């Protein structure tokens, strides 16, 4: 049988944007900046609070399992709901200013998914042998599987998922709260940071990507770790050469919070042959071919 886990939530990624070099620490010529008092930008995609640099009045970071679906489409009541979803090994959007991929096609590298709650654990890498930066045609082919399929403008889907149909309205409310914080603050660095954020949110161009989603579909074929002592999955997930498939979108980019929203699914073959070979290639039609 196949079991599907749905997960969603806000993630943080503090990354400089074009035309800054991708490792720019403060953000200069792009529209994303570290404000005074914050550590340098590091580009790491964080789905859980550890390591994040939260900004005041912004969404809480946490991507968790929402629900489980059985093959017949029915939801499955499960203690797995609420499990934390993480990407391990400091993954980054690796477009490298178009050297690796154009805007909207950036691969997330490395890709190592973990879902855990108590003694329950699902952990699998995309691949065990891919080198990054790619050095061979095989590496480039694998990297292509990690790329997004481009940007889809979908404010409706984002609004339904996040409850935010107008980032401008959220920013007006947040700016009012920051104004109040500014009036109350006597710390020079904090005041400079608050002013910077208020100024950035006053420019509507900075909200332009909120309604866009990047679509990913990634087969996980690397080493798998499974710990399910209470048999919450109802069976044993296939590992070995049988891939798990995760498809998800990242969107709702809020550059003030340096957060986006992620909604996705993990398909687990439980005592089942799993996905047909080539499924990833079929899903990669819209991905950019650099090679």
């Amino acid at each position, binding site marked *: 049988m196949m079991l599907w886990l749905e997960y969603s939530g806000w993630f943080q990624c503090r990354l400089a944007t074009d035309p800054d070099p991708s490792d720019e620490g403060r953000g*200069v010529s792009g529209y994303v900046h570290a404000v005074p008092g914050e550590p340098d930008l590091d580009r790491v995609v964080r789905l859980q609070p550890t390591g994040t640099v939260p900004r005041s009045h912004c969404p809480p970071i946490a991507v968790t399992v929402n629900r489980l679906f059985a093959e017949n489409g029915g939801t499955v009541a499960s203690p797995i709901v609420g499990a934390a979803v993480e990407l391990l090994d400091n993954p980054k959007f690796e477009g490298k200013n178009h*050297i690796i991929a154009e805007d909207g096609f950036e691969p997330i590298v490395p890709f190592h998914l973990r879902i855990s709650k108590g003694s329950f654990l699902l952990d699998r890498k995309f691949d065990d042998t891919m080198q990054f930066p*790619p050095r061979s045609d095989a590496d480039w082919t694998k990297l292509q599987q990690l790329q997004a399929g481009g940007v889809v403008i979908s404010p409706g889907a984002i609004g339904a998922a996040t409850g935010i149909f107008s980032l401008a309205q959220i920013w007006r409310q947040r700016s009012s709260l920051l104004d109040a914080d500014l009036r109350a603050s006597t710390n*020079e660095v904090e*005041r400079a940071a608050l*002013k910077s954020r208020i100024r950035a949110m006053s420019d509507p161009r900075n909200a332009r990507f909120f309604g866009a989603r990047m679509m990913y579909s990634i087969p996980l074929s690397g080493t798998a770790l499974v710990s399910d002592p209470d048999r919450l999955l109802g069976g044993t997930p296939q590992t070995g050469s049988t891939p798990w498939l995760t498809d998800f979108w990242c969107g709702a980019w809020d550059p003030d919070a340096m957060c986006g929203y992620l909604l996705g699914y993990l398909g687990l073959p439980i005592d089942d042959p799993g996905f047909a070979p080539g499924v990833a290639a079929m899903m990669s039609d819209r991905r950019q071919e650099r090679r």
Partner: protein
Amino acid sequence: MLQYMFAAMSMKKRLDEGISGEQQELLRDWESRILGVMREEMAHLGTVCNLLTSIGGAPRFDRPNFPQPAKTRYPFSFDLLPFSDEALYRFIRFELPKGETPPAPPSRQPTAFGVYLAALSFEVIPEPIEYEYIGELYRQIAEGFRSIPENKLFIGPKFAQDVENWSRRMQILRVVDRQSAQAAVDFIIQEGEGSPGNRAGSHYATFSDIRQQLNRESGFKASRPIVVNPRTRPHPDVSGKAITLLTNKNSVKVAELFNFCYETALLMLAQLYCFGGETFGERGILRESARQIMTMALRPIAEILTEMPATDRPADGNAGPTFELYSPFQLSTQVSARFTILYEHLVDAVGECESLVGVSSRFAFIAENLGLILQNIRAARAKESHL
């Protein structure tokens, strides 16, 4: 443009460099705006190449090393100066529209150079172009395009024009006839000077505004302690005494690597604009690679340099990008040789970066970028060969 980049790279970035939070924000804004001017200057360079190509001319990428006297045009020399009131004064003077009040000189009077005069002998020899303002120079160029019959002037092939959008906010204008030549010149003047009564957004207005803001922040040391006109060795084409020879071993290595990557970027640009049979795809990858090497190698190396010592005595100040050309810049006449030389440059640059990871971990990132640029060029050429 190089003087603008030197100043932009010299700015302080972190609170631990003795700046307040407000000043950090100001500096970020100023650097962003100067880098924006630089991007537009790159577009001007491409558009000037198109102007030259349209009339059968050859784009030029050679130039003397810094410092250089500015002859009759400016009351100062061309120097690599850290960001300061004096640097901004010069930048405003470079972009000053005719009829506007010249900027107030900086507190330290700049050095004046001797007057250069040329004697005319034969009419076939071009007259020296006399101008006090950049806008005047471009208006004289436009006059040349207007006065020579189109059928005699536009002998360059139309397919040689570079017409791509290089990136956001950076577009190269195509030149194929008198009308498009005039539009190209107007575009360059407009971005540099603005128009009478409306200078907003021009390079002139940008530098004027930054200078006003800087002067409001009295006592604010905005730049790192960068030396003036740094260089790694003596050059016969350099005039003036205001130079600083870098002697710290690692700084010299990094500055030489910067110059090598700078030359590699020039090779890409020269091959793009002086093409001798490169395919459409090859020109595309040269354009992309030139942009990428500037952003993902030159800028990071320049930033690293501004935090390295110029000499072994910290009191002497920090190094900076030297923009040196060690020999006359030239491009092979043969396409295959051009690419071979470019590959060799990139392979060598990757090796040098890897050897400098101990100096700054950022060199691993730069080595990755250069290696990937090399792979992309090779892959694009391989794809072209199969078409």
